[in-house]
C-alpha cells in the first residue's frame, strides 16, 4: 500500500520532443492517496495508458519524478515497484494451469513453495477461482481470465497499488457488473490503491471515489462523480461527463447577464463579478433547463426540433438563434409542439472563460 506522487511528469515517445504537441503527457503533477479508488477517464489517445505505464514503471518519463510513499522510484523497473497491472485483454500464461499462473509472480521472486501454495489458495478463494485451480488457464471464459490477471497482482503480499487498463472491455455486459462489484469488494478488503483507466463514464462513476479527467495529455479535474457533474472545471469535463453532456453556448458578459445570440440570461452575480476578460461560454446540464410556453426573465425563445424518449425522461433538442441545445424533461411533462421558451436557472448556469470554469 502506498501513496503515489507524480512530480511534474511529462513524457514524449519521441527522442527529441520539439514542441508541446510532441508530449503524450504534459506536466502532470498529482497525488494518489493511499487506499483510494481512482478512475482515470478520458477519450482515446489522451494519455491515460501512458500515465498508467509511467506509474507501473513500464515507461520511464522524459521529465519529472515518481514517488511511492515519498521514495523516488522513477528509475526502478516494474518488478521492483510492487505494482500490479491488469490489461485490456487478459494476459495469461496459456500452457500453465490456473494455479501455476497465480503462483508465477511468487515463484519468480523465489518465495518458498509452502507459502506459494497457501497464498494462491487464499487468493483463489477470494476470486472464486478455486474450482479451476487445476485447469488450463487458456480454456476459461474471458471474465475468469481477467480474474486470473488480477489474482497475479493480488497474490503478492507487498503489492502497493493495482492499475487497471480498461479491464472490462472484453467482458460480457452482465458479467461486467459482477466483476466490478468484485473489484469494489477487493478494494475494501485489501485497502489497496486502485487506479482504473476507462473511457466509459458509467464504469468510472460506479467504481471510483475520485475521478480524474484527462484531456490531451493533461489532468483537467480530480473530484467525486458529484463534483464533476455539478462543477466541471473545464468545458471538456462538462461535455464528457453526463449523457448527453453539458450544453455549451458561446456568449459575452455584460454586467450580470450573459448575452447569447438568441437573447440574454441572468448569471449568478458572484460569478459575473469575477468574469474578467476572455472568450466566454455558458454551460448548463440538460437536466436543469426548463421548458415553458410563456416568456419570462432568464428564458430564451426557441423551437423544438426533436424529442427522444428515454424511459423516465425525454431529451428535447431545441434550436434557438444559431445554437442547438438539449433539455431533459421528466416523463409526463408536456413538451411544446413547436415554439417554446427555455429557462436557464442562474444558480445552475456555469460560466466558462477560455474553457475554464469561473468560480
Amino acid at each position, binding site marked *: 500500500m502506498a501513496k503515489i506522487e507524480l512530480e511534474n511528469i511529462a513524457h514524449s515517445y519521441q527522442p527529441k520532443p520539439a514542441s508541446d504537441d510532441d508530449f503524450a503527457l504534459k506536466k502532470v503533477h498529482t497525488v494518489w492517496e493511499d487506499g483510494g479508488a481512482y478512475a482515470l477517464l478520458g477519450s482515446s489517445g489522451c494519455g491515460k495508458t501512458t500515465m498508467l*505505464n509511467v506509474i*507501473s514503471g*513500464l515507461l520511464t518519463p522524459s521529465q519529472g519524478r515518481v514517488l511511492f510513499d515519498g521514495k523516488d522510484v522513477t528509475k526502478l*523497473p*516494474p*518488478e521492483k515497484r510492487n*505494482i*500490479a*497491472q491488469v*490489461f*485490456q*485483454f487478459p*494476459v495469461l*500464461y*496459456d*500452457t*500453465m*494451469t490456473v494455479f501455476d499462473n497465480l503462483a*508465477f*509472480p511468487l515463484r*519468480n*521472486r523465489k518465495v518458498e513453495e509452502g507459502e506459494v501454495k497457501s497464498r494462491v489458495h487464499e487468493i483463489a478463494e477470494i476470486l472464486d477461482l478455486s474450482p479451476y485451480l*487445476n*485447469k*488450463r488457464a*487458456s*480454456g476459461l471464459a474471458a471474465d475468469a481470465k481477467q480474474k486470473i*490477471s488480477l489474482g*497475479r*497482482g493480488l497474490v503478492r503480499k507487498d503489492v502497493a497499488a493495482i492499475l487497471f487498463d480498461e479491464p472490462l472491455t472484453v467482458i460480457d455486459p452482465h458479467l461486467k457488473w459482477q466483476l466490478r462489484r468484485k473489484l469494489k469488494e477487493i478494494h475494501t478488503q485489501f485497502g489497496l490503491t486502485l487506479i482504473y483507466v476507462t473511457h466509459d463514464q458509467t464504469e468510472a462513476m460506479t467504481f471510483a471515489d475520485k475521478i480524474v479527467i484527462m484531456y490531451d495529455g493533461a489532468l483537467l479535474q480530480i473530484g467525486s462523480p458529484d463534483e464533476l457533474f455539478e462543477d466541471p472545471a473545464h468545458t471538456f469535463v462538462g461535455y464528457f461527463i453526463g449523457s448527453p453532456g453539458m450544453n455549451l453556448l458561446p456568449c459575452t458578459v455584460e454586467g450580470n447577464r450573459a448575452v447569447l445570440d438568441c437573447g440574454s440570461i441572468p448569471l449568478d452575480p458572484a460569478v459575473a463579478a469575477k468574469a474578467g476578460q476572455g472568450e466566454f461560454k455558458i454551460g448548463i446540464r440538460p437536466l436543469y433547463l426548463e421548458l415553458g410556453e410563456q416568456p419570462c426573465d432568464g428564458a430564451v425563445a426557441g423551437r423544438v426540433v426533436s424529442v427522444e424518449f428515454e424511459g423516465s425522461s425525454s431529451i428535447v433538442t431545441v434550436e434557438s438563434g444559431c445554437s442547438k441545445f438539449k433539455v431533459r424533461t421528466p416523463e409526463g411533462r408536456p413538451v411544446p409542439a413547436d415554439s417554446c421558451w427555455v429557462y436557464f436557472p442562474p444558480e445552475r448556469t456555469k460560466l466558462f472563460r477560455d474553457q475554464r470554469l469561473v468560480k
Partner: protein
Amino acid sequence: MEKWENNRAWFLILPVFVIVAFSAIIPLMTVVNYSVQDILGPGQRIFVGTEWFREMLTNSRLHDALIKQLIFSGLVLLIEIPLGIAIALTMPHKGWTASVCLVLLALPLLIPWNVIGTIWIIFTRPDIGLFGATINTLGLAFDHTANPLHAWITVLLMEVWHWTPLVVLLAYAGLRSIPDAYYQAAKIDGASRWAVFRYIQLPKMRGVLTIAVLLRFMDSFLIYAEPFVLTGGGPGNATTFLSIYLVKLSTAMDLGPAAAFSIIYFLIVLLFCWIFYQALQAVGTGDKS
C-alpha cells in the same frame, strides 16, 4: 434443414472436385494402377496383386534409404527449428534493419532448387570453392565427392542454409503477433528472460512452429533436386535418399515396383505428418489432475 443429398450447395463445390480429380486423384490412381500390374509393353500387362508391395517392403536397399532419410529429416528438424527460433529472437523488431534482415533471409528461398545444388558444388570444391578450399587450407582434408561423412555434412549444411530462413520467417511472424501487454505483464510478474521464452513466446509460436515442423519434415523427407545435383546420391549410396532411389528405380523402367514404392512413400509421409501434428497440438493443453 434439407437432407444433405438434396442440398444444392453440392453444385457449388463441384468445380473444386473436378480440379482436384484432375490434379491429384486421377494421377494418383494411375500410380495405383501401375502398382498392381506388371507392364511388359504397350497393351501387354499382367495383374500381379500385391506382389510389388511385398517386394518393395522386403527390399533392403529401400530399408537402407528409408533409415538414411529418417536420420536426415530428424537432423534437419533438430537443427533448423531451434536455429530458426534463435535467429528470429535476435532479429530487430522494427525499422529498416528489420526489413533488411527479412530480405536477406528470404534470398535462399528464392533460388531455384537445382541452382542451389550447383552453387554448393562450386562453393564446396576442394580446389577453388570458398568453403572447400578454406577448410583444406586449415589442414582438414575435405572432399564431399569421396568421403561419405563429408557428403552428408555438405548436404545437411546446404539444406540448413537453404531452408532455415523459412523457419525464421515463420517464427518471426509468430513472435511479432504477441501483444506488448504479455511482455509488460511478464515484467511486472518479475519473469526472467528464459521464463518469458518458455511461457509466452514458445506457446504463442505453437501454431507457426507446427507449420514449420510439418513443412520442413515433408520437404526434407522428399528432398531430391539439391542432393541429386550436388552428390548424385553418392559417394556410393551414402546420400541416396528415398526420392533419389525412387527415380533410379523408375528410370530403370521398373514402373510397377516404383509405383508401389511411391504409394508406400506417400503413406509414410502422411503417417509422420499426422503424428507430428497430433503431438504438437497435444503439448501443453489438457488439464492436470
